[in-house]
């Protein structure tokens, strides 16, 4: 650490050495490798948690819209449209302003991202449920005297598994980006907890002095998003309803959980 030059790491390539595999963070001298690893934990935890929240709310809202009476269906349908139309990032930023500062940030991020982006899931579940309700096995279940809730649990939910899992897998990369964006803007996790987006934000001032500090988090974020996009695509191909014989819910569940 060269304090005379404002904390630029000593040594080449941001101070790579046997002690610090990827060098140290300029200014603070924290180990970059460790911070990148912990950053991955935050990114993935928030992305997966937010996906879980948004799938839960979305499935509940979608089922309620399809199974409820006309008024409830209209209301939830409208609400879903509103949720889809609104820019998630903007509302997310705004929400972080009003939540008390001592609320755990990771949980806040999960809730904000999850609760603002369930619209797509709800719309999809609603459409699928309405299609399923016209099928014979649902009619048979209703004729044998089952209640709406029981039909939802026993007949509809299992049939909804494939499209919902596919949707969840596709949402994961989007949520990784959402977390990185919020952290980049400084409304995500608070330092010293690291997150890739937040590291990129502080790396802006170290362009010339330590290019690796920019390139490493950027590269990791890029690769993670790309990998989960490809994974989501694979899950979709595997679970495509038109290719029923290739239904492999087991693998899909691992991918989506």
């Amino acid at each position: 650490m060269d304090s005379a030059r404002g904390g630029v790491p000593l040594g080449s390539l941001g101070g790579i050495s046997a002690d610090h595999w990827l060098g140290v963070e300029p200014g603070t001298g924290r180990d970059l490798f460790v911070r990148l690893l912990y950053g991955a934990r935050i990114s993935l935890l928030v992305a997966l948690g937010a996906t879980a929240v948004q799938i839960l709310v979305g499935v509940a809202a979608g089922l309620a819209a399809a199974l409820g009476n006309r008024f409830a269906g209209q209301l939830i349908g409208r609400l879903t449209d509103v949720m889809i139309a609104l820019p998630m990032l903007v509302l997310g930023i705004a929400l972080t302003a009003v939540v008390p500062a001592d609320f755990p940030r990771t949980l806040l991020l999960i809730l904000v991202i999850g609760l603002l982006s369930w619209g797509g899931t709800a719309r999809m579940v609603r459409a699928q449920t309405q299609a399923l309700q016209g099928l014979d096995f649902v009619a048979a279940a209703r004729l044998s005297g089952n209640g709406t809730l029981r039909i939802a649990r026993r007949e509809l939910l299992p049939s909804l598994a494939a499209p919902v899992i596919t949707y969840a897998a596709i949402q994961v990369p989007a949520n990784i980006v959402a977390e990185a964006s919020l952290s980049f803007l400084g409304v995500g996790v608070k330092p010293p907890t690291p997150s890739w987006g937040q590291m990129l934000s502080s790396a802006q001032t170290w362009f010339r002095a330590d290019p690796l500090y920019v390139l490493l988090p950027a590269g990791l974020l890029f690769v993670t998003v790309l990998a989960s996009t490809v994974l989501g695509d694979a899950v979709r191909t595997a679970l495509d309803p038109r290719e029923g014989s290739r239904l492999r819910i087991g693998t899909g569940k691992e991918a989506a959980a």
Partner: protein
Amino acid sequence: MTRFVLGRIGGALFVLLALSATVYLLFYVAPGDPARLACGERCNPAQVAQVREQLGLNDPVVVQYLQFLQGLFTGRDYSGGAGLVLHCDAPCLGFSYQNDQQVTGLLLERLPATLSLALGALVIWLLVGVGTGLLSALRRGGPTERLLTVLTLAGTGTPVFILGLLLLMAVCAYLQWLPFPTYVPLGEDPEQWAWNMLLPWITLGVFESAKYARLTRSSTVETLAEDHIRTFRAYGVSERAIVTRHAVRGAVAPVIALSAVDFGTMIGGAVLTESLFGIPGLGKTLIDGVRVVDLPVVVGVVLAIGTAVVLAGAVADLLYALADRRVALT
């Protein structure tokens, strides 16, 4: 037609009303003490009480919201205490005590920067995105298409600020072709304005292009399967002319519609690009408002952005119907 337009406008109004009510409740009623927040941290209890009285925070929630709506449509007065009356013209979004300015005025001041960013990006994504999409539709099955598919896949997922950061680093820090951008208003110096906006335009435009390339390609390829294209082929029209002159028409309507939506989102949603390049637009105003917990500004920006998005959605529907007459206005 009239029925369709009226229906859309009605829907848009409903969404805006719902949005304003939600935002209002969330930000003014639920957490913390808005009076203290509006007043800033250095206020003593007497001042806070005064601000609370001025903001009408002692009234019931519904009354407050109705007053807020009234302010939006007809303007309202704030009693500034000691006989002082602050008048706020319609559309009144409240008063930012920290900027010592009315929120509406503040937003109008910031709008040109956002508009110049969004317009430039629009031009780039239409050129690059549609061009790329056409090229990959023309070279179906070839290595060019595979390369373009990989590029667009990578482009749609990556956060916009990675592209921006890398561009800044390469162009400004290492190659030093351009100085680090600072925003210069168009009215002051058009040449400097364009040079300084170049990197933000490229960043946002290229980032959005990936989506448009995919859309253009899929709509073009879809049209290629239709009967009239088969007839063109039978007449011996070249593949190039078929794709670039006839099949591309299938892409016009969806591209226009999506552009309208994206443009609307960008009016407020380009928060990342604006904050990365320091462009003083609406997105930056929102982030700054959040940093200093200036609630009237945050509420104002969210409502303005929501309005832009909802209007853009309605415009997109109309444009779509106008560009593709097969979509009967239902």
